[in-house]
């Protein structure tokens, strides 16, 4: 059984462990979730927000955040955006994938204990947020208000609806908003930042975890700090072109930081000046 907890020490970080595809599921347009089982039967422990490097042999390697560990399978949700992710999305049951990881800092969910926690996700940014949401749901009494605010392009592209319903029933206040909708949608239409403005939480002491496209995170972080959340209490998950995943190659360097090693989760306070540098 996979567990969400302290990550394994990566003893051979450059050596992929072979995993076999045991489940595939379409989770919306262009998004596929692969359930992977290790060939060596050694389960992987990961922290919420960490990522693995998934290797489609003969094509290449891509950084994909760990969505969950479920029924002995490690779940990764992948959007088809290029050659590597296309190859991963096309995997069939029994195919073999190389897995290196888990890597990165992840969400420090413990930091939200006895505080209001506000999780904000946009698009596939929901995948890395879900392990944090489930950890909070598992120890719900340790937190005060727990909000999960989710934005998507349209109702049909609202991902992981089953998780959202289950998290709602486990005490998280789940709110969804879409860019546009047809008349059948009874939820909200607008920008995810509007949910930040409308939601009731104690901004001065809240912990906020934000994941999604960088522009969305920038606007969301601004909305949170405008509400009074200290910049140091806003955590964002950065995305850059990860290659080695251990801070050696420099592909994901962002100013003085290596996103793979020092992140991908950073304080907004630390990232804010770097996000203003257009060349980075």
């Amino acid at each position, binding site marked *: 059984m996979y567990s969400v907890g302290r990550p394994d020490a990566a003893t051979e970080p450059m050596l992929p462990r072979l995993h076999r595809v045991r489940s595939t599921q379409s989770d919306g347009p262009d998004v596929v979730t692969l359930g992977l089982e290790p060939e060596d039967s050694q389960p992987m422990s990961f922290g919420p927000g960490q990522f693995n490097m998934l290797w489609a042999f003969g094509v290449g390697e891509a950084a994909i955040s760990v969505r969950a560990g479920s029924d002995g399978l490690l779940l990764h949700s992948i959007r088809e955006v290029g050659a590597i992710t296309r190859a991963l999305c096309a995997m069939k049951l029994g195919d073999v994938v190389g897995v290196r990881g888990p890597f990165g800092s992840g969400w420090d969910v413990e930091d939200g204990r006895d505080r209001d926690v506000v999780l904000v996700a946009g698009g596939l940014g929901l995948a890395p947020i879900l392990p944090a949401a489930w950890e909070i749901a598992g120890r719900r009494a340790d937190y005060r208000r727990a909000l999960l605010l989710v934005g998507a392009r349209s109702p049909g592209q609202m991902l992981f609806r089953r998780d959202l319903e289950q998290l709602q029933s486990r005490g998280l206040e789940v709110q969804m908003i879409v860019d546009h909708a047809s008349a059948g949608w009874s939820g909200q*239409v607008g920008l995810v930042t509007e949910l930040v403005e409308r939601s009731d939480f104690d901004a001065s002491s809240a912990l906020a975890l934000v994941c999604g496209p960088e522009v969305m995170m920038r606007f969301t972080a601004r909305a949170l700090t405008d509400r009074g959340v200290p910049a140091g209490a806003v955590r964002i998950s950065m995305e850059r072109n990860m290659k080695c995943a251990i801070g050696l190659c420099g592909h994901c360097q962002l100013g003085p930081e290596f996103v793979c090693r020092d992140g991908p989760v950073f304080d907004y306070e630390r990232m804010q000046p770097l996000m203003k540098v257009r060349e980075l």
Partner: protein
Amino acid sequence: MARRDLERLLAELTPFSGLRDADLTTVAACGQNVSFAAGTYLFREGEPADRFFLLRQGRLALEAAEPGRGALVIDTIGPGEVAGFSWLFPPYRWQFDGHALDRIAAVAFDGSCLRGKCDGDPRLGYELMKHFSSVMTDRMQSARIRLLDLYGQTAG
């Protein structure tokens, strides 16, 4: 709701917060309490926009009807928010349909009444315009960011 209660309510809401007490009294004089059942259309595209609404309860969907596709929802507006800016500018016609998603309780303001008061008191007009511009800017920014179609990009 008594006029005094309405003034107190207005003072707490963005389009009117910061107005002087006398201004709130003037604005409140143009408002009246209304309610609508879920499913009702508060206004329709092309109709004269002779009023706007300050929602107290319930949610309103701004829709555009597209033949063959039905109604497309552009925005939703909730408690404490304003529905309607078309009363401010000629030709004073609604640009979209306003559809009650839930039972709505609101304050409806007579647009021509308020415009008349603003014409007679340019200082009040300027104050109100500043406040409404702020709300309109927020809506425009939201629409602009959504035009970027952010969620199609890779993340995670």
